[in-house]
């Protein structure tokens, strides 16, 4: 049971972080705090993706050159085998494809998502700034109250 938990502890921590961010979005009535919570939530989702992409014993997905020094000081038989391996690597333009690399696809997805995240955050913040200029507050309760009072007074300006 404990080993099972140890195998999955990453997911559980990420879920706790995600729910913390979501809680801030739901419970807080301040718009900037809400956006900070949204940012935490977003970063936790990135963590989930990157956790999935990890391959144990793997390297970052930057291809390594198949260096010649790897084959120095080996017995002739292994050298021949290594030369065959090098021929195979030469087909891959001299990159060593025998190493385990982590999965690059989630990295690409999250890389762009981070930058898009900051762009959308900027939109949200500028909306908050405009709301503050019109209502004089960024607390949701007071904004709702101002709207309610205004609607009671009618549409006549």
């Amino acid at each position, binding site marked *: 049971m404990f080993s099972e938990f140890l195998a999955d502890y990453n997911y559980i921590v990420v879920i706790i972080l995600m729910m913390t961010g979501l809680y801030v979005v739901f419970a807080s009535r301040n718009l900037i705090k809400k956006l900070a919570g949204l940012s935490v939530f977003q970063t936790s989702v990135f963590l989930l993706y990157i956790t999935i992409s990890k391959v144990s014993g793997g390297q970052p997905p930057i291809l390594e050159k198949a260096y010649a020094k790897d084959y120095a000081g080996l017995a002739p038989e292994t050298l021949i085998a290594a030369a065959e391996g090098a021929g195979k690597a030469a087909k891959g333009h001299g990159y060593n494809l025998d190493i385990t690399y982590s999965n690059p696809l989630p990295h690409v997805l999250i890389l762009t998502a981070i*930058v898009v995240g900051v762009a959308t955050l*900027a939109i949200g913040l500028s909306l908050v700034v405009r709301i503050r200029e019109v209502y004089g507050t960024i607390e949701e309760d007071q904004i709702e109250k101002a709207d309610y009072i205004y609607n009671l007074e009618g549409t006549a300006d």
Partner: protein
Amino acid sequence: MHDPHVLLRVISKFLIPIIALFALYVQFHGDYGPGGGFQAGVILAASVILYALIFGLDAAKKAFPPSWVRIGMTIGVLLYGGTGVVTWLLGGEYLNYSVLAHEASHGQHYGILAVELGVLVTVTTVMIAIFYAFGSRQPETDERDW
């Protein structure tokens, strides 16, 4: 004149060109190590933002005029899309860089370079634009200002 931030000014004046240089390193070394247009764009924008934070927004607007921002935003996207159009005209699919040179992998190199440059220009100028927009907004609209 006594300036309380003289240390900050001297050190950041020394650091800002290095940050900009590092952004270019990240941009053009992106094929070989971690990095690329997105990261380089943000770092280049960070150098301008740091300049604005230390020396004031007006000085930053002299160094990097807002008109550049407006032009750069569009040029970046057009550079990216234009690369696709060029590959189109050369007989390949949209954004298939293999047709850009005689050898497919060389064409891919050129294509990635052009596309990353487009991303760099867009991200840099958009980040600077967002910072300018927030930074030059007046904090409070007081009634006495009307």
